[in-house]
């Protein structure tokens, strides 16, 4: 192990603004500035901005780029329109290497197709190594642009309005008109950027990719423009509680190398009909067979947290285990996601979670715990 941590172009800003810096997947990142709960609630009520530059950004181009990715990803990319994003898994024959967003970008001037992948920081190096090992030759190029760019997520009911206020009129109209899971290019605060209507919080919002050299200026511009609207800078702590409330899985917790994606409710991330990709036969077998355990929500009356790995029990019988848990600020009590035996998965089932020396009563609940506008 090395002690050297990667730093995003926004690291100095985080340190200067009270960010509590921690190691995360080899990066030095802010877990919070002051209160995770306040950052969480600001995102739900107004807007939160997050440095997500640690996420891996890969650029794929070449005449065979689409057919090559089509042969590798669990979602189909053949026929995907320019500006569309799709949730996909990245697999090899034996395991799930990561989950990712794949996007079709505007073709190069000579008509060459270009796509991008956003992958988890913790998996970036092995995903890049795997994809490089599968390259067909010079007809596809794969570039890891993570260190040359930064990525800023602006999320919450005021997020789009705040970002659009920093754009020329036509660019603001394009961003404002983006449907969920679509993307465009735009000038934001004078910086050329790729903007997608995506996120990991359960709120409306955008994720912005910008050159590393322009990241600090763009971050500062969004922060200044957003403050009067109630925007706050948020750390990875709030990002985690927000995605938990929104019922979104996290690789390494809910989703693992040997997961059955159908048991996790991630069947939408796999298109099997008429397709062949690494592990596709394995997934066909999984789809055909009811899973032993499925992903569910758990809610508690207490704020005491059922954390990852804690046993879910009925009486003396273990029926599952927690995969993520936290106090949920919008819900007001503690919640968790867990993998539990299919027979006890219906919402309302009473279960206990073993929290160290104590037994905490809870019940199975539908996911997500929070739905915007709901």
């Amino acid at each position, binding site marked *: 192990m090395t002690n050297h941590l990667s730093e995003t172009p926004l690291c100095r800003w985080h340190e200067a603004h009270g960010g509590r810096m921690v190691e995360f997947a080899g990066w030095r990142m802010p877990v919070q500035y*002051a209160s995770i709960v306040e950052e969480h609630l600001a995102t739900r009520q107004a807007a939160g901005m997050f440095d997500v530059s640690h996420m891996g950004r890969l650029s794929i181009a070449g005449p065979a780029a689409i057919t090559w990715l089509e042969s590798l990803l669990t979602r189909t990319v053949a026929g995907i329109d320019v500006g569309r994003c799709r949730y996909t898994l990245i697999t090899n024959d034996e395991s799930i290497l990561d989950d990712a967003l794949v996007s079709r970008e505007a073709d190069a001037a000579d008509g060459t197709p270009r796509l991008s992948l956003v992958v988890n920081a913790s998996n970036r190096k092995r995903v890049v190594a795997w994809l490089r090992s599968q390259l067909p030759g010079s007809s596809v190029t794969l570039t890891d642009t993570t260190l040359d760019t930064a990525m800023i997520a602006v999320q919450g009911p005021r997020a789009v309005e705040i970002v659009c206020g920093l754009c020329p009129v036509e660019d603001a109209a394009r961003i404002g008109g983006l449907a969920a899971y679509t993307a465009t290019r735009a000038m934001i605060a004078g910086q050329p950027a790729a903007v997608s209507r995506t996120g990991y919080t359960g709120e409306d919002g955008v994720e912005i990719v910008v050159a590393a050299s322009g990241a600090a200026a763009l971050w500062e511009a969004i922060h200044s423009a957003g403050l009067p609207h109630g925007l706050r800078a948020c750390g990875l702590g709030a990002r985690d509680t927000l995605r938990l409330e929104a019922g979104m899985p996290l690789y390494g917790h809910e989703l693992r190398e040997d997961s059955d994606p159908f048991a996790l409710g991630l069947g939408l991330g796999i298109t099997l009909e008429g397709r062949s990709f690494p592990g596709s036969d394995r997934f066909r077998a999984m789809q055909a067979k009811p899973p032993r355990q499925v992903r569910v929500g758990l809610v508690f009356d207490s704020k005491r947290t059922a954390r990852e790995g804690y046993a879910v029990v009925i009486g003396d019988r273990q029926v599952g285990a927690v995969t993520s848990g936290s106090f949920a600020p919008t819900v007001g009590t503690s919640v968790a996601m867990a993998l539990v035996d299919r027979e006890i998965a219906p919402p309302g089932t009473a279960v206990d979670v073993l929290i160290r020396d104590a037994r905490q009563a809870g019940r199975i609940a539908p996911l997500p715990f929070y739905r915007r506008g709901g």
Partner: protein
Amino acid sequence: MAVPRRYAPSHEWIRLEGDGTATVGISAYAVEALTDLVFMQLPEVGRRVKAGESFGEIESVKAVSDMYAPVAGEVVAVNTELPQRLESLGQDPYEAGWIARIKPDNPADIEGLLDQTAYDALVGKQSR
């Protein structure tokens, strides 16, 4: 004259009272470092504790931390209202935010803990 607080390196404070018992809590520094407190498990009244023994826990959104008895003795009272009012730890950690009262086996043990100056030095803060 108020009896000065002493501190354990694990961020509990303790103050000897006139009746021979000692009040115990956690420092303002610890409360601020934890932030977003959600849960507290109080010690049991009547429990005998050794110095440095875990006798309760405090949980924030991010993590669970043990609370340690600063000296050996018997727990004679706990602040039963505190778990429902954890915000009082942030507002007033040394009075309303008290956690337990211990009858020390040897009250002189308290003298062996960190004084305010030494504790401030430990947490890297100016004396106030």
